[in-house]
């Protein structure tokens, strides 16, 4: 006997009501899970950016000490020769030490003096050296000079270490804390815009380390990458989209491009190491090799974007040009390409943004060296921003955590600018046919 027929209508109603309640409950759960997933994703975005900005924002200001430095001829050039070698190798550290002693006349004894000297960044003498070598007439004069304070002083001033923490953790002795307080009260020690961070190359001293070298390395590498991958990518896309007959070979090229787009970037680094450095003997750590590797890496992205830009140009444009007697090459070069160019450019910028953040293949070709000098050409040893982040993140000094986050902020600013340009270009020039 059919079981349904034994139920009274009342029972059926109850059954449906119960199952409906269950179904609505599961509907609610499902929806809540969706909200949870979306909020977790959004939380990850804000967590990541919030943490980086909170850590990195402090790096754009730095504690500076203003001292009156006496360019003492007896210290710089006791023989009075004024030869470049003598000027370049003089003991400029002694000038800074003298200026500090002058500020704190009461300090005596080797240990105390050493503590005093530690307040100022140990790399500061370099700027004195540069100034004197550039202009020897400074010798014998007195000038007020602003130089970065040591990183432990800097962290103390910014409140990143607790005043009451034990000395080992604070990294400043009680005496040094008292001096720092005196200097701060006198307005000699204060926070200013961090010129070193944006103006210097890498350094082992956190207060002297900057991103300029990495930034220029990135610009050189990316510039050449764009110069190579944009024309080649556009040309390949034009061939595949406008000229090629559909046959096995073009299918092979297509599959190839799609697969290359998903090959791990580190494999491109292996290719660069084996071919460009191993086979062709190109220099290690050079932006030239980095650009070649990144070109191969971004090429699939550029080709795919350019092809879809070409696809978006309606066939009527081509037919009109062909109808007027233009050759196929003329049709493409004079009519289709100009219309597709903004879309291609958008794709290229997105590809470049990917290349800017790429570091694994560049590790392979040796762009990870500790490089103080700012690169001047395509074959100079250089590093790039993401690799600089990687290098700094490995260093033990706590002050480098802020520097790493600062470098990430610089990197992200560039990425945001590039992506915003791409979006702007798309909105400005996108045509709906």
């Amino acid at each position, binding site marked *: 006997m059919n079981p349904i027929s034994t139920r009274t209508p009342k029972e059926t109603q109850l059954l449906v009501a119960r199952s409906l309640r269950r179904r609505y409950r599961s509907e609610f759960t499902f929806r809540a899970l969706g909200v949870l997933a979306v909020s977790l*994703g959004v939380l990850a975005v804000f967590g990541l950016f919030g943490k980086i900005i909170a850590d990195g924002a402090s790096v754009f200001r730095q504690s500076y000490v203003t001292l009156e430095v006496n360019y003492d001829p007896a210290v710089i050039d006791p023989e009075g020769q004024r030869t470049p070698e003598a000027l370049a190798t003089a003991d400029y550290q002694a000038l800074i030490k003298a200026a500090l002693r002058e500020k704190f006349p009461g300090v005596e004894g080797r240990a105390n003096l050493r503590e005093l000297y530690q307040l100022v960044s140990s790399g500061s003498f370099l700027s004195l050296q540069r100034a004197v070598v550039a202009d020897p007439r400074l010798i014998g004069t007195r000038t007020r000079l602003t130089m970065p304070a040591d990183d432990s002083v800097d962290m103390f001033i910014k409140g990143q270490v607790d005043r009451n923490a034990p000395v080992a953790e604070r990294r400043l002795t009680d005496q040094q804390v008292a001096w720092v307080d005196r200097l701060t009260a006198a307005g000699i020690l204060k926070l200013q815009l961090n010129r070193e961070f944006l103006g210097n190359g890498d350094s082992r001293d956190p207060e002297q380390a900057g991103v300029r070298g990495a930034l220029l390395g990135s610009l050189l590498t990316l510039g050449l990458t764009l110069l190579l991958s944009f024309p080649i990518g556009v040309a*390949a896309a034009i061939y595949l989209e406008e000229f090629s007959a559909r046959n096995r070979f073009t299918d092979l090229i297509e599959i*190839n491009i799609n*697969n290359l787009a998903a*090959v791990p970037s*580190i*494999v491109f680094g*292996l290719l660069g190491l084996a071919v460009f450095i191993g086979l062709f003997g190109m220099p290690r750590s050079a932006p030239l090799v980095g650009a070649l590797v990144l070109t*191969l890496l971004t090429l699939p992205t550029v080709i795919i974007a350019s092809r879809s830009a070409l696809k978006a140009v309606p066939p009527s444009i081509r037919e009109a040009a062909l109808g007027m007697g233009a050759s196929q090459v003329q049709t493409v070069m004079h009519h289709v390409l100009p219309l597709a160019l903004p879309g291609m450019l958008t794709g290229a910028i997105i590809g470049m943004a990917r290349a800017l953040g790429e570091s*694994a293949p560049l590790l392979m070709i040796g762009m990870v060296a500790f490089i103080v000098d700012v690169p001047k050409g395509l074959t100079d040893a250089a590093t790039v921003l993401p690799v600089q982040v990687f290098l700094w993140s490995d260093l033990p000094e706590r002050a480098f955590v802020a520097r790493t986050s600062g470098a990430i902020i610089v990197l992200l600013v560039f990425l945001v600018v590039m992506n915003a340009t791409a979006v702007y270009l798309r909105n400005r020039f996108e045509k709906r046919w």
Partner: protein
Amino acid sequence: MTPSLTLLALLGLTAVAFWVGRGRSLATVGGPRGIRDLHSLPGHYGMLTALWCAAPALLIATLWWMFQDQVLMGLVTSHLPADQRALPPGEFGLLVNDLRNVVAGNATLANVPAATAAAAAEYLQLRGTARLALAVLVLALGIIAIVVVRSRIRPDMRARNSVESAVRALLFLCSLLAVLTTLAILLSVLTEALRFFSKVPVTEFLFSTSWSPQMAIRADQVGAEGSFGAIPLFAGTLLISLMAMLISVPIGLMSAIYLAEYASRRLRKIVKPLLEVLAGVPTVVYGFFAATTLGPALRSLGENLGLEVASESALNAGLVMGVMIIPFVSSLADDMITAVPQSLRDGAYALGATRSETVRQVVLRAALPGIVGGVLLAVSRAIGETMIVVMAAGLAANLTANPLEAVTTVTVQIVTLLVGDQEFDSPKTLAAFALGLVLFIVTLALNAIALYVVRRYREQYE
């Protein structure tokens, strides 16, 4: 003449060639008024001349620049004193390295033996001569081409056809580059890997469970024998990828479903790009976050719960990698879900299904092949991801399934084997290429399967 100066000069000459060709074509028909007698536009004659001027010269120059170092190094080292040429390969490599350093200006002449210094001087001198000769050759070729082509220009010359076939050939070559890249990857990685397998048997590499690539520097060193069993690396890679998938697949899929089926248009417009921001963040940033923030946090959390969590645990790297892959999964799943025809949903609603029932029993089932393809792509990305694991995962090759312990991955080992000083011949360096080969093959296979599945699925509803 430095290479860039030579290139610049050639560029100038090419511009001249264009004007010469263009002017000549007009002159043959008696100026602009006779232009109707020309077969092609004057510009085409100009371009033809420019092409003949630049193309052969560029080809020769590029070939020379590619192999200049090998040729010069061969010449210079063959002139070294006999006792130095007879050095064993390792020491000879060091000598060549010294030589390169002197040539690049990284080391001064005072720090190297006299013979090396002399060789370096010879190298520099040869390079100078070669550069000058190349510049002369390139420019001479260009000028000859201009003269020859100019003398051949006639009104009935089919310049446009020639230029256009050259353009087509160029375009074709550019598209061939993608295939060449794949071939180059395969060949370069394969040859190095084969050299590795001639020193270490394939079976040991693939099936042995002990990985410690430290090679002896001295013969009598303790632990001199390097062992290259890659199983722990594969296991570590899989463990971390699994962690990443456990995070990214549920979150990515659920947010794609929510944004596609439930969210208002406004919310979707705000949240979707926000999630995609995660895909644009460089992976070093994730690595830094994992190493400095999440790692210590997990560790102290583990301490509070009474668990032993390694600071470079698989969980740490996997979690962060999962976050990185969320947008990847969600945007692919979103594509697949929106590709399901509305009629299927309408049918389900008409039968009285709730929204979630429609999604689970109709939409997801219809989109399943595409979503599986997307997840496979995500897995291949997780396997190939490098920076996060280099910064957040460990170096020790532990064979474990416990995500709280430190494991190492294929990519981490490639980086540690190849960064820093290295010699090209040691199994230690070559092992990286063998690992790279495995990585390349596995990701290629995953991609091929995924693309196939996705394409089949897409065609179904088109």
